[in-house]
């Protein structure tokens, strides 16, 4: 992929992000932060590439370190979001 294609995806995604985030109800802003935290750990993709690659031992260990950090976030972020969302209940109908 050339730079312009990547940049196009990025700019479009910024606009999508803008509209999607404004549609998030303020009551869920804390879960929004927790889940954005979890998904921004998609950086784990880069960590996995480094951790799996041969050629540089230091690079490999840096990658594995990043895998640990990103995994804390992924599992922690999704789990805490799930926990919070489970608490939101509607009024019981009598």
């Amino acid at each position, binding site marked *: 992929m050339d730079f312009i294609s990547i940049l196009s995806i990025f700019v479009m995604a910024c606009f999508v992000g803008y509209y999607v985030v404004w549609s*998030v109800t303020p009551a*869920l802003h804390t879960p929004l932060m927790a889940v954005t935290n979890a998904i921004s750990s998609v950086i784990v993709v880069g960590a996995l590439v480094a951790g799996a690659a041969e050629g540089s031992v230091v690079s490999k260990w840096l990658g594995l370190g990043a895998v640990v950090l990103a995994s804390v976030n992924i599992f922690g972020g999704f789990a*805490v979001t799930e926990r919070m969302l489970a608490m939101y209940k509607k009024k019981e109908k009598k």
Partner: protein
Amino acid sequence: MEHITTPPWAMLAYLVAGVLFIMALRGLSSPATSRAGNRYGIVGMTIAMVTTLATHGVASLPEIAAAIAIGGGLGFVTARKIKMTDMPQLVAAFHSLVGLAAVLVGLAAYLNPIAFGIAGPDGVIEVQSRIEMGLGIAIGAITFSGSVIAFLKLNGNMSGAPIMLPGRHAINLGTLLAILGLVGYFTQDQAPWVIAVITALSFVIGFLLIIPIGGADMPVVVSMLNSYSGWAAAAMGFTLHNTAMIITGALVGSSGAILSYIMCKAMNRSFISVIAGGFGAAPEASGGGAAKVQRPWKRGSAEDAAFLMKEAENVIIIPGYGMAVAQAQHVLREMGDLLKKEGVNVKYAIHPVAGRMPGHMNVLLAEANVPYDEVFELEDINGEFAQADVAFIIGANDVVNPAAKTDKSSPIYGMPVFDVDKAKTVMFIKRSMGGVGYAGVDNDVFYMDQTMMLLADAKKMVEDINKALAH
């Protein structure tokens, strides 16, 4: 020029992951669809990880599995154990990890560029990739050290008071320019010292940027760091030519930026003034009291409060962070239940800055089993105070202070506040008449004719009201 050999199916898989992340955020538009949204996010992450492992030699699988197990286990246990009041600290800690992970990935890519497909066989990194890498590492490092400071301040390990260095604006600006200059120089010379200095300076600037920001502005800071963690992921996505990372980075970056904007607006503070720091300091030595004359106010008892609310038709409860500190959310919900039994219409009104991070108060009320359809945002409920028989203020202060509307000299002037003065009766739970709000200003609501001050610990007072209601 192009060295990346990502197969087309993998590129498609990353795109699917990116779309699933968009749907994860979309789900949060209502509590009813939110849990499905979170599942989309989990599926997206699984797809991204499996695709990466499948396309990049599985030789190191045992080490990688161990790394995921260690990190995942830690994260999962923390997520289960954390108290909802501590959510802002947790989020700050998580941001710091994303930042540090970005730095590590950037450095790994620098040391082994061929594995990332950003260098020729001679190991010379492409110019464009050098810029992306340099910026990615810089943003990641700022996110890391900034979030660590935010965590320490929120967690109480460090005073919330701003720490002002002399000439800090010049120092900050100089450091930022130096980082940008070095990223520029990095395109000419890929020597290790350049990347090392960029990393070090970025750690320093993250630290310098956050220490002068006071406790009251922490909701903005947490949102801002949320945004940075997204931009760091996006920069790494550019380096790796990975759509999932770019889409996610853009989403998270916009999300944090919008939340910062909402928080700033809710406090009537400009983003620049928050970043410049200095707000949320300890109240000035004399406080508001010295200039003011002693004014008369009325004290009420739990029995009086219970009697009035029982007779009321509409009660609006305004909880603030003080309620969470007193751990009064559960007894407050019981009070709401008792009142509803008496046929009273009970609503909760939440100011955007009621908690320590955006939406924090909603989570705390949800945890106490308050149904979310009884909870309203400032602009949705502010018109209803004229019809309210009782405005019940618990643990909040600045968000009901009319000085924000009338007193141009007040530090909170211009902040949107609840029009509690329109309610027939105002009940104000407060520990004593001495203390003032976070912003350190006196509140005219204390002295209004229709105000009844309920002076006690918030939890104790509500318990007493509940006893009186049960009779």
